[in-house]
Every structure is written in structure tokens, then in C-alpha cells.
């Protein structure tokens, strides 16, 4: 325990249980990595074995047969497009809610809370037909618009929470110097609240990269599919080749894992504080 007095308790018990929990969390991921460099026969023989001769070839084959050059490009377009869109829209909204006089701000904040609770199944079917009518099916733009909308309440709220914390004096000083609202936003607020934008961007980007339901519904053309849904198709195509499908999964996971390990504080802060304190 965190004791101010000198008395301390043994933490051995904590470490034993925590270690077991960590094995539970990471063990399966480790096995995925191990299996990704094995043949199906090696996996069948012993899923936990460390391969004597790792078959890194699996990655090259999966990368080529899964058409990763194309799907990664698609995912990058979707992720970048959504992150940029959401930061603009959420940044403007967050600024308005934090620093401008908005009548009915409570209603909007209430919508943002309830809006995230609306089950996607309520609107996905009509949205599909609306998108079909406007020719937005099977387009990256169509998907980006949906992603922007579904992540905008969260993004607006999170960015707002960073902007509220900014000292009012900066804004007042800029106003006295004759800055317009737009100039206050771009010249004062934006440079000061960039950590909020970075955190929001990371979390929205993670969500888009991993997203499945909307992508599988709105993109059917194989050349336009992002990594997530094309990986699904790949798994179904090579259902017997465990080594290959595991390698394909690792390719999708690796960028996320690296980015998460580099910026884990931001990820954890954004996902827990922003997500739960709405």
C-alpha cells in the first residue's frame, strides 16, 4: 500500500498475481507472434514451441497474397482522412463549447453523451441506403464521413476538456489586440492545446485502423478494402494455413503495437479519461 508511515507490507503477493495476469494478457499475443513464423504442421505439433528455424517467409507470402501494399494504402487514407477531418470538426466544436457563448451548450453536451450510446444498428441500415443513393458506397470518402461522425462526439469532448484548462488571460489578451474568434482559435488556442489534438488523433486513428463493422458494410470492392476487412477475407481464403493467417494478423497489429509502446501514456490517458469521464 501507499503508506506515508514507515510500515510497509510485502508486495510479493501483488507481484505473483500481477505476473499471472500479465501472462494471461500477453501470452496469447506472444503465441501469435511465435505461430506467425511456423508452418501449420509445426503449430499442430505444439502451439507453444519456439520454432528452430523461424519461417519469416510467412510474412513475405502473407504481404503479397494479402495485397498489403494496397490495403495498407487504403487504411492509411481512411485513417489520415478521418483524423484530419475529426480534428478540424472536433477542434472547432471543442473551441465553441469551451470558450464561446453557446446557448444550449448543455443540450449539445447531452447529445454527445447520448449520441455515443445510440446503438450503431439503429442507423447503419438506413445509412447504407442513403449512401447508396448518393454514390458514397464503395468510396473512401463515404467511409471517412461516417468515421468522422461516429468519432466526433468523443473527439469534441476530449479536445474541449484540454481547451477548458487553458488560461483565459491569453484569450482576453488576444481579443484586446483585435483578434477575431477565428484568429483566437488558430493563433492562441491551437498552439496551446496541441497535446489534446495529438491524443485525440491517436485514439481516433487507432479506432479507424481497427474498425470492422462499418468497413465491412460500406466497402465491398476488394481493391478499396482496408486492412481489417481484407484480413478477414484473407483468413477465410487461407483457413487451413494457420502460420500464414497469423503472419497476416501480425502485419496488421505491428504498426499499432509500435505506436502504442512509443506513446502509451497518451493512448492510456486519452482512452481512459476521455472515454470514461463523459
Amino acid at each position, binding site marked *: 500500500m501507499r503508506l506515508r508511515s514507515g510500515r510497509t507490507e510485502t508486495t510479493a503477493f501483488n507481484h505473483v498475481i500481477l505476473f499471472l495476469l500479465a501472462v494471461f494478457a500477453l501470452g496469447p499475443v506472444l503465441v501469435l507472434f511465435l505461430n506467425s513464423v511456423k508452418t501449420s504442421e509445426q503449430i499442430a505439433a505444439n502451439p*507453444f514451441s519456439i520454432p528452430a528455424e523461424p519461417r519469416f517467409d510467412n510474412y513475405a507470402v502473407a504481404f503479397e497474397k494479402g495485397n498489403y501494399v494496397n490495403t495498407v494504402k487504403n487504411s492509411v487514407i481512411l485513417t489520415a482522412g478521418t483524423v484530419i477531418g475529426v480534428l478540424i470538426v472536433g477542434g472547432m466544436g471543442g473551441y465553441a463549447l469551451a470558450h464561446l457563448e453557446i446557448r444550449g451548450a448543455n443540450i449539445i453536451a447531452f447529445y454527445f453523451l447520448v449520441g455515443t450510446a445510440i446503438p450503431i444498428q*439503429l442507423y447503419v441500415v438506413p445509412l447504407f441506403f442513403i449512401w447508396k443513393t448518393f454514390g458514397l458506397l464503395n468510396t473512401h470518402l463515404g467511409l471517412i464521413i461516417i468515421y468522422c461522425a461516429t468519432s466526433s462526439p468523443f473527439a469534441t469532448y476530449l479536445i474541449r476538456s484540454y481547451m477548458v484548462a487553458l488560461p483565459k488571460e491569453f484569450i482576453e489578451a488576444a481579443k484586446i489586440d483585435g483578434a477575431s474568434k477565428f484568429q483566437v482559435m488558430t493563433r492562441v488556442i491551437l498552439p496551446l492545446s496541441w497535446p489534446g489534438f495529438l491524443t485525440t488523433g491517436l485514439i481516433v486513428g487507432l479506432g479507424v485502423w481497427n474498425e470492422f463493422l462499418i468497413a465491412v458494410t460500406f466497402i465491398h470492392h476488394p481493391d478499396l478494402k482496408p486492412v481489417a476487412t481484407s484480413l478477414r477475407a484473407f483468413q477465410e481464403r487461407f483457413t487451413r494455413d494457420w502460420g500464414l493467417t497469423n503472419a497476416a494478423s501480425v502485419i496488421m497489429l505491428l504498426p499499432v503495437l509500435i505506436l502504442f509502446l512509443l506513446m502509451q501514456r497518451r493512448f492510456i490517458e486519452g482512452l481512459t479519461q476521455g472515454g470514461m469521464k463523459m
Partner: protein
Amino acid sequence: MAFKIDSRVGVTTAYRWRNILSNYIFLAPVVALNLIVIVIPSLTSIYISMNKWSGLNQPEFVGLANFERLINDPIYWKSLSHNVIWTIFFLTIPVFMGLMGAFLLSGIKRFQMVYRVAFFIPYVIASVVNTELWRTLLHPRHGIGAWLAKQGIEGFDIRVFGSKHTALYGVAFVDSWHFWGFLVIVYLAAMYQVQPDLYEVAILEGASRFQRFRHVTVPGIRPTLVFTLLMIMIWSVPAFDYIYLLTDGGPAHASEVLGTYLYNMSFFRFEVGYAAAIGVTMALITACIVAIFVILRRRGWEI
């Protein structure tokens, strides 16, 4: 003179209005996006639910017929009961693990960051990857079960996702494996807000580790705890990804939930009107959960 003052008032009012109006321009994009993608389609769904429509032909208005059909549809009720089981599963096992993990973490300093990262990693992995990983691990001939059988421990080499007795629980297990670490971090953050003095008093009074957890930690993080329980209930209504990817509701609807039932109904069986009716009931269920939460809060529950 009077005229002058009047006009000046007029100018300032107009200026004020323009000023306030221009504030809304900043909010307009986010509001417009939500109207177009979420609000308007949601309302359209209510109208579609009162039609017989395949998505291709002319919709035919049938009033509440879809809802009548729903009441008499055993698979609908089966799916709904699975959503309830799913909710109870997530309200208990991951919450228990999250609380335990966070409480143990709050008691250590060394390696705390390492454990936090380790617990959180499954949460950032995509559903398509997690399901692939567990499909391999739980495969009856390649996975853990088969490996145990070879070591002489029989009985675990079963088709977890292929058997109607285990499919739903198997999928819930995989999804909660991905989710519980998130709760650890949320509860840990809340535990650091609890007054350290309370723990000191409890220790001085000879409270055991479990007693401190029960009587200091849990009451201390109660608002966060209740909020996570609420969010779990809300998130359990549209549960989809893991079920769709691992079993697609099968075998024989043994792991069907409302989300997968609706999805297959609209995009594979082309019963769009009926699917919309299912969607409307899902929204009503969510509304009830939120309403109960709000009422309890008004009645003075500290949540």
C-alpha cells in the same frame, strides 16, 4: 434624442445576435455531421421499421406488423436472452478482474508501468486480429486443448466455437480478454483519487487487505465503478464484432445476439423493414438503461 438611443440599442442587439450566431458557426460542422450520419438515419429507421421492404422494391407500409412478428419470433427472444447473458458476463468477470488488477497495482511501485502496458495491449489490438489469435489457440486439433490432451489432460480439446453449449461463452471470453485491461487502468486512475488517510486508518485498525478493498477502495471509487457498469450495459446492446467474426451467431443461433441477427436480416436476408424494427428495439433498450440510471441518480443514489 430618444430616436438616437433606440437605434443604438437596436445596433447593439443586432451586433450581439450576430456575435452569438457566429459562435454557432464553429459548432455547425460537428452538429451537421451527426445529423446526417446518426440522427437522421436513426429517425428514418423508425419509419422503415413500419414498412415491409427488401431494400430494392417499393416499401409497403405495414404499421406495427414488424413488431408483432418480432414478439412471436423465438430467435429474436433467444438473441435478446444472449445479450442479457453477455451483459451479465461482462458485468462480473472483467469487472472483477479489473478491480483485482487495479487494487494489486495500486499497492506496488516497481514495475507498475510495465504491468499497465501489458494489461492494456489486448485492448488496442483489432477484433480481426484477436479473433484470429483465439481461433488458433482454441482450435480443437491445434490449440491449447490439443496440447493439454497430449500431456495427458483430456477434455479440453473441444470445438469451443462450434458447440452450441460453449459458443456464446467462448466468444464472450475472447471479447472480455480484450476488454478487462481497459478496466484496470480506469479503476487504477480512480483508486489514486481515494484519500490515502483512509487506508492508513484502516491499517491502524488492523484491517486485512481484503477488508481494505471492500470497505475503503470500493466505496472510494464507487462513482467510477457505477459508471463503468452503466457503460458496459450500454455497450452490450450493440455487441457485434467478436460474435460476427468468431461464430456469426452460430451454430444454429446458439450465439446469436441482436446485433448479428439484425445484420444478417438486413444484408443477407433482405428483410430491411424487419431489421429496422429490431434496431428500434435495441435503441429502446438502451434508452431504458439510460433512463433507469438517470432516475436512480435523481433519487439520490450517489452515482
